[in-house]
């Protein structure tokens, strides 16, 4: 199998982590509670760390060094799904995105812990505790606010309805899907989506929220092939501003 398929998989996972990590870090100092500000910032830091680990694997496969991959590419070379690049909105939207995305992320890495590609399997086993916290945090908040007051329920419901088409975009298939599955590297986006739906339903059922009908929800695709919303390039510019001033600087 060519490295192209493997690289495509690594890039999309790494870019999801970097872009959402950066987005979530925008809450640092603005969180709704001091303790939550710390928790959300820590998880954002974890995500950026995951992306760095994945870019390091890519570098070992012949790609540029991690900092160059993170900071020197234009938006149309990023493979993240559009969900992670959307602006933070209010905290209800950020929480719903955190819940929808991190549920998929935790299942993805759980699947990858059985990967035939050892660097990925090892990384997945290493970060499983972090992902356990991320999903515990998301599930607890969704259960709390999803059955609290009329305002919290209606806000979360509105954000859930808005985010869902983008969340389905996480599972946009790659042209290499078959190869990746046959090589035992990853069981594929379809399988991931199946498990994700089950888990999301399980949590939503414990709240007063209702999950829109997934059969008639049209996924927003494009991110995996570099076709992004207008929100990604400004994010990339802001994220890489300091790095680009002096790319050779040692930190």
């Amino acid at each position, binding site marked *: 199998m060519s490295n192209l398929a493997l690289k495509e998989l690594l890039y999309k996972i790494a870019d999801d982590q970097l872009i959402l990590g950066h987005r979530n870090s*925008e809450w640092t*100092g*603005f969180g709704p*509670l*001091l*303790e*939550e500000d*710390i*928790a959300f910032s*820590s*998880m954002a830091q974890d995500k950026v760390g995951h992306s760095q680990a994945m870019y390091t694997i890519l570098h070992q496969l012949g790609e540029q060094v991690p900092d160059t991959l993170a900071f020197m590419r234009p938006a149309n070379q990023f493979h993240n799904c559009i969900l992670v690049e959307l602006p933070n909105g209010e905290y209800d939207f950020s929480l719903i995105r955190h819940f929808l995305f991190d549920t998929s992320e935790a299942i993805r890495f759980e699947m990858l812990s059985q990967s035939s590609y050892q660097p990925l399997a090892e990384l997945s086993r*290493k*970060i*499983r*505790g*972090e992902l*356990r*916290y991320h999903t*515990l*945090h998301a599930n*607890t*908040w969704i259960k*709390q606010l999803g059955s609290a007051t009329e305002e919290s329920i209606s806000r979360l419901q509105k954000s859930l309805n808005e985010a869902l088409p983008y969340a389905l975009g996480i599972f946009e298939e790659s042209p290499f899907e078959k190869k990746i599955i046959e090589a035992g590297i990853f069981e594929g986006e379809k399988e991931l989506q199946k498990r994700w739906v089950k888990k999301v339903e399980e949590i939503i059922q414990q709240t007063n929220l209702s999950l829109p009908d997934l059969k008639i929800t049209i996924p927003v695709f494009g991110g995996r092939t570099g076709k992004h919303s207008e929100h990604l390039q400004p994010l990339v510019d*802001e994220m890489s501003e300091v790095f680009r001033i002096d790319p050779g600087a040692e930190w």
Partner: protein
Amino acid sequence: MNSLDPRVNRLPEIGNPQNIQDKEQLDQFGTFEVFVQPKEGKPFQHEGALHAPNLEMAYILAKETFTRRFTCTSLYVVDTRNVYVSPITERDQNAYDLVENVSDQSKEKRSFEIYHLLKRGKQHVHVGSVKASTPQEAMSVAKNQLNAGKVFNIWSVASNDIRFTSDEEKELWLTLPEKKFRDAADYKGGEKLSSFLERRIKESNV
């Protein structure tokens, strides 16, 4: 708004500051006490308190607030209202001397966790558990079983009121020892500053 932080400039206008109404007094979450086990086999120690709407939320918020830096193998939280506190002692008096002997046979016995404050200004540390019907009785049982001679303050907490970390959840702290980047010392700021200053002096001498 005009800030060097682009996030601040993006914030929505939040009305006229003169129109902001004060919150009602005490309109805030209750507090929860946080206990941390720094190493496998070591006793849990009290780390501090935080505000939260309920026990489970307190657990997830305590995890990052209290265990994101130093070594940790486990964590638990309890509603402050469920911590039964012994009388406070003066000077070298043992707090257990102020604990009354209580025996209550009316209710079923359950498990209570007992904590001692051995040095003023330090943390309460878990010393063991006892069976009793009430927190008062638990303290009285501890007086016989766990009395260490000079204890400044004693806490007793019903084990059922505690949100413990499950065995599965212990993996939450797997990568913590690697997160050196959370320590300011890891950036070696002082060293970098001195080498920068040295370089500047050399350059100005040229």
